[in-house]
């Protein structure tokens, strides 16, 4: 889309705010609608729109496929790891009380932030992976032929 100047400029302006909004949805998720899944999707949109408007090579230079795979796995580990921590502290798996035994409400709070962060990272990774899987296939029609 080299010739679509307006699209390119507007996209560059938007990507930053899309990502900030993703982080807002992520970390404000326990007070307002939102959370890891939505934030992950929004964050992935930031990368996908960059790939759509510029090119796959461009977005893969910023966010290489190997890193996307690792992030998808890392998020799950962060989620499961939070549970493992409470397990080692002598509580049930995923019992966030363990993170702050004297003030269980705070514990639940820390726990859910960590877990949602894990969800967010994984969802970003998986969404971008799906996008890469589809667009990496050889195009039938050349980009200039539009």
């Amino acid at each position: 889309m080299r010739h679509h100047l307006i699209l390119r400029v507007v996209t560059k302006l938007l990507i930053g705010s899309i990502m900030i909004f993703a982080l807002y949805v992520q970390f404000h998720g326990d007070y307002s609608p939102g959370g890891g899944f939505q934030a992950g999707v929004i964050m992935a949109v930031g990368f996908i729109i960059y790939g759509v408007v510029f090119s796959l090579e461009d977005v893969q230079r910023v966010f290489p496929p190997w890193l996307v795979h690792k992030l998808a796995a890392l998020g799950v580990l962060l989620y499961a790891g939070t549970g493992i921590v409470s397990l080692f502290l002598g509580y049930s798996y995923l019992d966030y009380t363990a993170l702050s035994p004297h003030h269980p409400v705070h514990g639940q709070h820390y726990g859910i932030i960590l877990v949602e962060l894990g969800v967010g990272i994984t969802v970003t990774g998986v969404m971008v992976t799906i996008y890469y899987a589809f667009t990496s296939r050889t195009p039938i029609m050349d980009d200039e032929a539009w």
Partner: protein
Amino acid sequence: MSTETVHHTALTLADHLPALQVLVPFIAAPLIVLFGRRGIAWPIALASSATAFAVSILLLSRVIDGSVISYHMGGWEPPLGIEYRVDAANAFVLLLVSAMSTLVLLFARESVEAEVSARHHALFYSAYLLCLSGLLGVAITGDAFNVFVFLEISSLATYVLIAQGSERDKRALTASYDYLIMGTIGATFFVIGIGFLYMATGTLNMADIADRISEQGSNRTIRAGFAFIVVGVGLKVAMYPLHSWLPNAYTYAPSMVTAFLAATATKVAIYVLLRFVFTVFDPGFLFEFNTLGYIILPLAIVAMFAASFIAVFQSDFKRMLAYSSVGQIGYILLGIAMLSQTGLTAAIVHLFNHGITKAALFMAVGAFVLTAKGSFYNDIQGLGRRMPLTSAAVVVGGLSLIGVPGTAGFVSKWLLVEAALENGWWPVALLVVASSLLAVIYVWRVLEVLYMQPTPDGSTVQEAPMSMLAPMWIAALACVYFGLDTDVTLTAAATAAEGLLAGSTGLQ
């Protein structure tokens, strides 16, 4: 806010066993992706599966006397929170799944190297572990909705695993797609059924649902829920007319995947069926009684004959075994449909015995695919002399499949016949014996191809490597061992059957 002191007794490692059962393979799966190294994927997978196996032995040893372990996820009390509930029935299934997984992984390294492209190895083992943890989760959880979630985890991983067979044969992709569509329909029916139960009872904990159903008795919502659940799980079980995904999926999947799925996936689905039919619903209801007697029983008998009959005419060893699996599931369903302590024990024992038998046979198929590059009868012609150990394992597994005395298959068929006679259903007992004759024919065809036909000229086929022979023979010897020493399996199955029937009022 003031600081509150909350009384808490620290849990020890032993208390965490139910959680660890699912967690160990579940955490190993993303770890493999994170390391992303082909070389360490297999060792991590094997280590985590072996740990799960050890945990399942510890769990079974704790519940074999009939006690129940309950683990509260996240510290939330059931019925609000998710509960992992281990009793003899599911500890037995957990043991089968983790044992078979460990055995298949021991076998897998060379097989996967030959059948799956190298760049997929790390992701392949990761998907395998997700499938394993999904199956373990289905078996261990006491929450109806959680069953659905784990069922989906294992199913999605299974679709990926089956599609990996496309390296050898592109039809693996359509087989996987077929299974994806059928499996998703099954899962949807299952979750609709759970929706109905939730509507009728307002709870998702299985024990709690069971209590409320027995309080309010049968009504139309509960009956609809029952129907949806039986059909949905029936698809996963490959209950006779719903089995169409199975032959292709088993034929085109990589050999180790087939060995694992045949030994565990359908068995776990049968466990879900048992759990819902006997624990959640009450078999005393006329509706359920009729479903089992007039629908499941005839279909089980049709499966025993039709699938075995189709197996006779196959020209591919692997495909033949796949059809034979559909037939053998018929025997298990027959045991369930008898609605008696002996019938249920027979079903649970056959679930285990058929699992180890098919694992041995499908591992032999994997060895043939590795050395002879195929499992069609003309690929394996006369290999009895060239691959004596693999072929001998086929003999042992085949005999167990038929149900020859001294093998595991005999024990479960004997119990099944006994249960049929106990109910006074002597025609059914005769049919069990008659359908075994079909198994004689299809097993004989393979043995004939292996031993009686000449090896094609210029064949350079060698015996499979030790790393494949050892697990194959462990499974084959297990077929013999559990055919001679029936103490462990029968005790565990009888305790499990008792536990499952204990909640139902209409039978005792």
